[in-house]
C-alpha cells in the first residue's frame, strides 16, 4: 500500500535543504571568492523551488489518495449493504411466501360450500401457521435492529466466572435432557472485569446454545477461562459437536449465514456476538474440525477502553 509521510516532514526539507546548502557554502564563500558567493544563494533558491514543487505534487497525490480511500470505503459499504439487503430479502420472503399461501388456503377453506369439521380445523391450522411465520419475521427484524443499534456499552465490574456460570446453569437444564455434559474449568484468580455484563451474557448464551445445537445429543461442552498477558481474559467454549467445514468457517460471522434448517435460525446470532465482542474491545476467534467439534475463543479486556468504531 502507498504510504505518504506527513507533510510536516516535507515542509522541514523545504527550509532545511536550502539552509544546508547555504551553510555548506559559507567556507566556500570564505575561501572560494565571489563565484561561490553568487552560486550558493542560486543553488539554495533552486533547492527551495524544487522542493516546493515536489511538495505541491505530493499534496495533490495525497488528496487523490484520500479521495480514492473514501471511494473504496464507500464501495465496500455499498457492497455490504447489498449483501445484507439480499439476506434480509431472502429471510423475509420465505415466511411471507408461507403466509401468502396459508391465506389462500384459509380462503379456500372459508368458502361456505366447503364448511366441514375438517375445513374449520384446517382454517385454524392455517391461522396458527400465519402466527408462527409472523413471529419468524419479527425475530428477524428485531435481531436486525439489535444488529444495527450501536449503543455505547455500560461498563460495570463483573466476576466473569460467575456470569458464565449463570448462563451455563441456564443451558444445562436443557442440555442434561439431551445427555450433554457441561465441564467447567474456571481460572480461580481472575480479577473483576470492567465490561458490559448484559452484552457479554448475550454472547455466552449464544455460544452455549450453538454448542448444544451442534452436539444434538450425547456430547460434552467445555467452558474454560484464563488470564492472557495481564490485560485480557479469555473464555473458551468447546463442543464435541458436528464441527464446521473449512468452507463455512469463513462465513460464520456473516449476517444471515446459517446451516440450520429454514425457520430454525436467522443466521444473525454469531454476527451480533462478533459485533458485541468488538464493541467491548475484545476479539473473537474460532477453531473447528468437521465431525470433531468447535472451539470459540472470546477475549475481553479487563479494563474497557472506549473507542470509536468506524
Amino acid at each position, binding site marked *: 500500500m502507498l504510504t505518504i509521510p506527513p507533510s510536516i516532514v516535507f515542509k522541514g526539507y523545504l527550509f532545511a535543504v536550502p539552509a544546508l546548502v547555504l551553510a555548506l557554502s559559507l567556507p566556500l564563500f570564505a575561501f572560494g571568492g565571489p563565484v561561490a558567493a553568487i552560486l550558493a544563494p542560486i543553488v539554495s533558491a533552486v533547492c527551495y523551488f524544487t522542493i516546493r514543487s515536489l511538495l505541491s505534487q505530493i499534496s495533490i497525490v495525497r488528496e487523490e489518495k484520500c479521495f480514492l480511500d473514501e471511494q473504496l470505503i464507500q464501495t465496500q459499504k455499498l457492497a455490504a449493504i447489498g449483501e445484507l439487503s439480499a439476506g434480509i430479502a431472502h429471510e423475509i*420472503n420465505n415466511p411471507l411466501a408461507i403466509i401468502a399461501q396459508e391465506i389462500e388456503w384459509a380462503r379456500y377453506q372459508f368458502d361456505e360450500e366447503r364448511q366441514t369439521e375438517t375445513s374449520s380445523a384446517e382454517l385454524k391450522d392455517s391461522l396458527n401457521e400465519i402466527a408462527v*411465520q409472523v413471529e419468524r419475521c419479527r425475530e428477524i427484524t428485531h435481531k436486525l435492529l439489535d444488529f444495527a443499534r450501536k449503543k455505547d456499552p455500560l461498563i460495570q465490574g463483573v466476576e466473569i466466572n460467575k456470569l458464565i456460570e449463570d448462563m451455563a446453569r441456564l443451558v444445562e437444564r436443557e442440555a442434561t435432557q439431551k445427555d450433554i455434559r457441561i465441564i467447567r474449568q474456571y481460572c480461580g484468580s481472575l480479577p473483576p472485569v470492567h465490561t458490559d455484563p448484559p452484552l457479554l451474557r448475550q454472547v455466552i448464551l449464544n455460544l452455549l446454545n450453538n454448542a448444544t445445537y451442534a452436539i444434538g445429543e450425547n456430547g460434552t461442552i467445555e467452558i474454560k477461562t484464563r488470564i492472557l498477558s495481564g490485560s485480557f481474559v479469555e473464555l473458551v467454549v468447546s463442543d464435541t459437536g458436528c464441527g464446521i467445514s473449512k468452507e463455512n468457517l469463513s462465513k460464520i460471522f456473516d449476517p444471515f449465514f446459517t*446451516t440450520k434448517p429454514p425457520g430454525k435460525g436467522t443466521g444473525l446470532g454469531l454476527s451480533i456476538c462478533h459485533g458485541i465482542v468488538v464493541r467491548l474491545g475484545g476479539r473473537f476467534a474460532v477453531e473447528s474440525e468437521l465431525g470433531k467439534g468447535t472451539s470459540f475463543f472470546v477475549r475481553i479486556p479487563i479494563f474497557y477502553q472506549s473507542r470509536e468504531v468506524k
Partner: protein
Amino acid sequence: MSARPRVLIVDDEERFRTTLRKLLTVREMEAADVGSAKDAFSEMEKNSYDVILLDVKMPEMNGIEALGRIKKEHPDVEVIILTGHASVDAAVEIMKLGGYEYLLKPCPIDELAGKIETAWERKIARAKRKTEGS
C-alpha cells in the same frame, strides 16, 4: 400424456411445500412434494412429472445445481425456479441451464398456477413436435 399437469415441488420449507401442494391439488393439478434435490431425483425415477418447482437455497445441493442435473437427465421436464432471493446472475445462470421461469417468493398462487399451466402446455407442444417430426 397426462390430462392435467403433474407437478413436483422441491423446497426445504416443509410448510411451504405442503400448503402449495394442497393449493395446486384443489386447482386440479397432480402435485407431490419433497424436501431436497436428492429426494427429487429419486422421486423422478419412480414417477413422471411435467413441471418441477424448485427452490434455490437448499442444503446439500442448491436449486441451480439441481436444475442442471434435471435438464441433463430429464430434458423434457420444465423447471420453474421459486426463490426468496432474486439476483441477475442467478437468473442468467438459470436461463442458460434451461429453466423455464424464475419467480420470486412470495408469488401469488394464481400467477404461479398460470406459469405452471403455460410450462405444461410448452411441454405438450414440444412432445407433439417431436412426434410429428419422427
